């Protein structure tokens, strides 16, 4: 079976201009050679520190920002070379949910207008059918139809996020990129929205690319997890395996840094020195070598290859010389 989504060596570089002539003086390598596949109805979680390229990767996959190079195949169709018209048609199958439920909804549209808009843009259904669909979608995200004529400012963060999700569902997408969908929400509502996402996946077979800096949230929702560092996926594995047996030194450090809400479990912390280097000027060799507690000579000059370390069928990939 063709996977739902296949990403091959995807890159997105942003030119940096400088000097009087505004010439290109450097490139920000926001996404620098990412490959993975996502099966129908599964969730791939993406974690990594701020600026590592998670959002850019999400946008490049959806062609909201055209990639610099590489391929994105959605149900076998290569998206990076599609013209605007064909891309517009493909957009029905892929949607995005943003972090900030405040900024992503238009303040002047009612709930009904907001959810209906994608149906209108794609010319789907009669007005009566659309109305029915909007009510149905509200039910799916657990809201009452009494809210249809109200405006976003009248809702809490969690409710706004539900409205955003209802809108993303309007066109029956196969893939949803969720970019920090619960990061702006308080703990007590976060669980409500996470459960909703899990249910949609289960009941509607939607695949998610779930982006978050919160490792515990990602573990909870994901089948597979990819760890990004400086524009690359340095480790990719089934969620359980990644959290129980991280193989990349960066993943180990990242996991050990998560504060544990259990005072009886003192964290065995690997404290990393220094900061993430600039993606404008990534170090040679392994991108992590300046901070890696296990750095070896080869790491300083030779980029580590991606190797398969999975046992028992499931793929577990690591880009690190320790495993090469």
């Amino acid at each position: 079976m063709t996977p739902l989504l296949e990403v091959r060596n995807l890159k997105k570089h942003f030119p940096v201009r400088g000097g009087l002539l505004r010439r290109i003086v450097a490139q920000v390598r926001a996404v620098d050679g990412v490959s993975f596949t996502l099966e129908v109805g599964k969730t791939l979680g993406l974690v990594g520190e701020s600026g590592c390229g998670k959002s850019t990767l999400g946008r490049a996959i959806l062609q909201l920002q055209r990639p610099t190079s590489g391929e994105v195949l959605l149900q076998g169709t290569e998206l990076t070379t599609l013209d605007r018209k064909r891309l517009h048609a493909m957009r029905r199958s892929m949607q995005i949910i943003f972090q900030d439920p405040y900024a992503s909804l238009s303040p002047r549209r009612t709930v009904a207008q907001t959810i209906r808009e994608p149906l209108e843009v794609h010319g789907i259904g009669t007005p009566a059918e659309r109305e029915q669909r909007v009510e149905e979608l509200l039910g799916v995200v657990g809201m009452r139809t009494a809210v249809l004529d109200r405006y976003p400012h009248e809702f809490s963060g969690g409710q706004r996020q539900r409205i955003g999700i209802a809108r993303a569902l309007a066109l029956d997408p196969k893939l949803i990129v969720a970019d920090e969908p619960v990061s702006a929400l308080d703990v007590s509502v976060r669980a409500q929205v996470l459960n909703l996402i899990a249910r949609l996946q289960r009941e509607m077979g939607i695949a998610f690319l779930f982006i978050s800096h919160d490792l515990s949230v990602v573990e909870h929702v994901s089948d597979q997890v990819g760890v990004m560092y400086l524009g690359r996926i340095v480790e990719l594995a089934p969620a359980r395996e990644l959290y129980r047996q991280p193989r990349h030194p960066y993943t180990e450090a990242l996991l050990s840094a998560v504060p544990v809400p259990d005072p009886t479990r003192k964290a065995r912390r690997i404290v990393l020195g220094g900061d993430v280097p600039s993606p404008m000027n990534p170090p040679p060799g392994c991108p992590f070598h300046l901070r890696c507690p296990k750095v070896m000579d080869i790491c300083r000059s030779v980029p580590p290859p991606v190797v398969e370390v999975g046992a028992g069928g499931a793929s577990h990939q690591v880009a690190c010389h320790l495993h090469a």
Partner: protein
Amino acid sequence: MSAEPILSVRDLVVEFRTEHGVVRAVDRVSFDVFPNETVGLVGESGCGKTVTGLAILGLIPSPPGRIASGSIRLAGRELVGLPESELRQLRGRDMAMVFQEPMTALNPVFTVGNQMMDILRRYKGLSRSQARAAAIELLAKVGIPAPAQRIDEYPHQLSGGMRQRVVIAMALSCDPKLIVADEPTTALDVTTQAQVLEQIVRLQQEFRMAMVLVTHDLGVVAETCQRALVMYCGRVAEQADIGPLFAHPRHPYTAGLLRSLPRVGEAEKQDLAVIPGMVPDLLDLPAGCRFAERCPRRDARCDGELPDLDGDAASPARVACFHPL
């Protein structure tokens, strides 16, 4: 704990005048902080954590805000009602605040060293060269590499984590008795957060300071505090030592929060426990318990009466609930 508290807050009420009416952001909050102790203030957005911290430092913007009643004592001295000039003196010398966003405390047009030396000279009466040496030593203490070079850099040349360390160094510069840190690592990445929290814990012990740590992150509380207050809608729902608080939460809200957290390393893909509904609007509070609408243990009494904390200031654990767990 037998020693005298450094900080003693009693029945603190803070109100803000808004377009729609008076908001009571903090409603009869009481707690003590002892020397060499870190007390967490934890709760969801808008529950009054920051306002409590600002009130302690005498930093409530007025208007629209004011301390409507209550008492705040620092080492026995009443702060409520002190003139601004005296509060300013105390803020430099005896207590300091670290904010979520380090740039609120840093001036972008001066070097890190200038800002630190300014404080050290003003409050400690050091000479220029003494102040510079002391500043370099403080930067080293908070874990800034190459402090003798970094001291001459401007805030924008530092990463977020380094800036927050500089702010912490500035807060420490006069050996304050009390530091209030408001979400000091919330804007940082998890690896940087781990570095900064580790420093904070170490420094707190080294300087034997009292600290109030404001955070929405229960993981941070578990790792850095000895005691915590769980706040809900401006009130303290529960207060206890960290061990019992996490092992046997007594307020239904605390219990619900702890259950709704996804935890690293133990997730089976199953639904998380949920606290239904949402936090009520401070302008439209229920007559009884503020958590009633979301509470599985609610009964008629909860709807009619507002529960107060049980026990008194000397009790090791307190809960504001008619039917605690």
